């Protein structure tokens, strides 16, 4: 039951002389909903891309569902949904063409859910015939989320999924995420700077700093002041500090 879905071991990644990930170890367990936090440029997108095998690591291994991420089977690939930070949708296609294309790629595709989301999230017939490149940033992001949810993924990776959405769009997205977690027990990893959204859905938060996971824990416990810190001998020790808001915690941990 508690075999990690994602296992990253000693992963390093450089861009030129800049070290982004530095012997990073990380695990994601089944059913976890983890918020990934870090300052701008901390390497959250690089971490998620390495996790998914979209970027080669310099050193270290990444395994998803027990398979080396460099050689994922089609069956495992089909269990993963990903919403990238920058929309990588096919700009010349219409939303309908793009979704039909992805539908054909996946063994499992929830067409009823996709149609319901399109209707609920304002994709009326005229918009479904427009080229994706002509849609607004928010519309493209919503489409990207619909595409990722289409195959009913078991593991959902979201990189700043709501950065282009207005508050109503964000709330719609959160509700959909909550539904998905309720219905399917989906494991979710998402990075965001919108702490209020994170508080609503993430049970666990992880901070990326200096190329490693600097702090991870249950959100409630962290807010209530429980910390596990590395004592000098390298053993984990539990300490209590004053209760804090997530924003204060973010500033304290990442600075």
């Amino acid at each position, binding site marked *: 039951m508690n075999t990690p879905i994602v296992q990253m071991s000693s992963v390093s990644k450089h861009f030129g002389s800049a070290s982004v990930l530095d012997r990073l170890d990380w695990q994601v367990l089944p059913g976890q909903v983890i918020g990934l936090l870090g300052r701008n440029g901390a390497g959250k997108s690089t971490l998620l891309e390495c996790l998914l095998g979209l970027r080669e690591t310099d050193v270290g291994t990444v395994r998803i569902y027990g398979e080396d991420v460099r050689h994922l089977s089609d069956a495992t690939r089909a269990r993963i949904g990903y919403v990238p930070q920058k929309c990588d949708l096919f700009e010349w296609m219409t939303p309908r063409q793009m979704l039909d294309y992805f539908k054909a790629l996946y063994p499992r595709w929830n067409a009823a859910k996709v149609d319901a989301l399109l209707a609920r999230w304002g994709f009326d017939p005229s918009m479904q015939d427009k080229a994706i490149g002509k849609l607004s940033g928010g519309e493209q992001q919503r489409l990207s989320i619909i595409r990722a949810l289409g195959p009913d993924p078991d593991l959902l990776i979201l990189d700043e999924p709501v950065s282009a959405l207005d508050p109503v769009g964000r709330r719609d997205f959160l509700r959909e995420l*909550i539904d998905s977690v309720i219905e399917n027990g989906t494991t979710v990893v998402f990075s965001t700077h919108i702490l209020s959204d994170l*508080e*609503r859905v993430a049970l666990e938060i992880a901070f990326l700093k200096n190329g490693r996971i600097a702090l991870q824990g249950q959100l*409630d416990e962290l807010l209530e002041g429980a910390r596990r810190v590395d004592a000098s001998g390298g053993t984990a020790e539990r300490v209590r500090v004053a*209760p804090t808001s*997530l924003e204060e915690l973010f500033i304290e941990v990442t600075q």
Partner: protein
Amino acid sequence: MTTHPAQLFSITTGSSEPIYRQLVEQVRRLVAAGQMAPGDGLPSVREVAQVLALNPMTVSKAYGLLEMEGLLVRQRGMGMRVAERAGTRHNTHERAELLRPILERAALEARQLELDPDTVLSLFTHILKEQA
């Protein structure tokens, strides 16, 4: 006996009080004040999660704690209800004690703002009358 809607609850993000704890405190206050009567039904975990856009586990955690302290009882197939003897045991003093956590927070901020007690108390008195 009524079943209360999920709109009964409201939570704030950005607080140092975790969301599950906010829900726990709200139920305690509503029961203590008699707005929730013994036997009343609570909205389902799923409903609260949907309406407030919260992870259902957070709502479950709040309900579970309230069940452990005897304020709520789980009824098979019917969800959570307010325990029969829940409403009867709170006198004024006990009800006032429920305000303590939130007032301690306010006191902390008042000290940080270097406000003297009289100023804070007169403001609080004013707010109390304003709402009534």
